[in-house]
């Protein structure tokens, strides 16, 4: 049976997410609650071995000061006190420098780097030519007969980032759809408009030095999408993005 000519052109687009590397800062209520639970836990707990040792040594010191030179223990013997251990650990902690949470790319607002905004999701946007306009879009490719839509989305991703990308695509089903009609000038009976199906994937590899990025690309968070995408497109994309 001959299928009726479909007037909609199909595209598959890939929304590649770089997942957060560090935890988001706690809200005020969360911080207060965390402090409260710590306090309650401490109140309900018993003394640990280390604390018992510390208390005993404090008692010994006090007794030694009150009763003059009560030398039952040999004076030459050097005993490591629990307090000394604590001071040593404190010193060691202060010497360690952890990597900063706010990176250089954050300060320069370099949107092409993957190292900024480590506590939120970053999405890939590329500049593509649609019709006769250059637009910022999620990487998309036209569907060709013989492949599934997921294959189209994978092809789109490979076209922009090269073949050596490790991405986990979340399932065979599309996450969202953006439907638009062509402007009247190029609208024909056969080509009424286009449907873009979005797929989601998580970026597994952390460095993209091998990726051959040909065109302009950006890694942006959900809030910054509004700076680049058109309003209708943005509305549809926002529906399937969790903050």
């Amino acid at each position, binding site marked *: 049976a001959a299928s009726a000519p479909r007037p909609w052109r199909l595209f598959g687009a890939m929304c590649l997410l770089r997942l957060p590397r560090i935890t988001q800062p706690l809200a005020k209520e969360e911080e*207060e609650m965390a402090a409260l639970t710590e306090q309650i836990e401490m109140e309900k707990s018993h003394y640990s071995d280390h604390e018992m040792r510390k208390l005993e040594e404090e008692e010994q010191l006090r007794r030694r000061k009150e009763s003059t030179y009560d030398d039952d223990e040999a004076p030459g013997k050097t005993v490591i006190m629990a307090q000394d251990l604590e001071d040593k650990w404190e010193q060691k902690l202060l010497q360690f420098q952890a990597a900063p949470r706010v990176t250089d790319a954050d300060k320069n607002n370099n949107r092409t780097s993957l190292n900024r905004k480590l506590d939120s999701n970053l999405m890939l946007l590329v500049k593509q030519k649609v019709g006769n306009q250059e637009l910022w879009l999620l990487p998309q490719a036209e569907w060709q007969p013989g492949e599934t839509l*997921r294959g189209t989305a994978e092809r789109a991703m490979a076209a922009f980032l090269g073949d050596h990308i490790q991405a986990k695509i979340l399932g065979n089903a599309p996450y969202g759809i953006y*439907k638009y009609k062509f402007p009247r000038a190029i609208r024909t009976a056969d080509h009424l408009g286009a449907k873009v199906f979005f797929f989601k994937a998580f970026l597994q590899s952390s460095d993209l030095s091998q990726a051959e990025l040909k065109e302009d690309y950006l890694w942006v968070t959900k809030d910054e999408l509004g700076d680049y995408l058109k309003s209708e497109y943005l509305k549809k994309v926002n529906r399937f993005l969790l903050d």
Partner: protein
Amino acid sequence: PCRAQPKKKKKVDVKREQAQKDRMKKKIKKLEKAAPEMIPIEDFITPLKYSDSKRVRSLPPLSFEETERRVLLMKKWCLFKQKQDKAEKKAIQTLVEAQQEALKELRLESEELYQAAIRRDEGLFPFEREGPNYTPPLPGYDPPEGKCVDITKVYTQ
């Protein structure tokens, strides 16, 4: 006469061996019938050294303001968590709706692509990912040397 003697030896040996085997089997059956010993759960048994009364902390009793502050904080926390939960559920709802809409449109387009889309993805699960930490990894960090000795007690029934 010479022929009869080895035969006796064989019979007596065979009988003795049979008797030994039966005794062993009876012992094994008795052991198996006895109920297996329970494996103690070490987390539920507090070691005796922690029930010493000297270990109890001596703290001043909580003031009235402190208890009031705690109660109010608990209520605020309750509200905060409820809002967070509702927001999460709403977000999941929009996600599902968007996907359903996409699948509906796809079905209108082509049945074959729709069937390919709703097929289960075998390679998706099990999905493993390491969670976010407080600070990003330090490039060129050399962790200190050390050896981990596992002293967990393993019980067999």
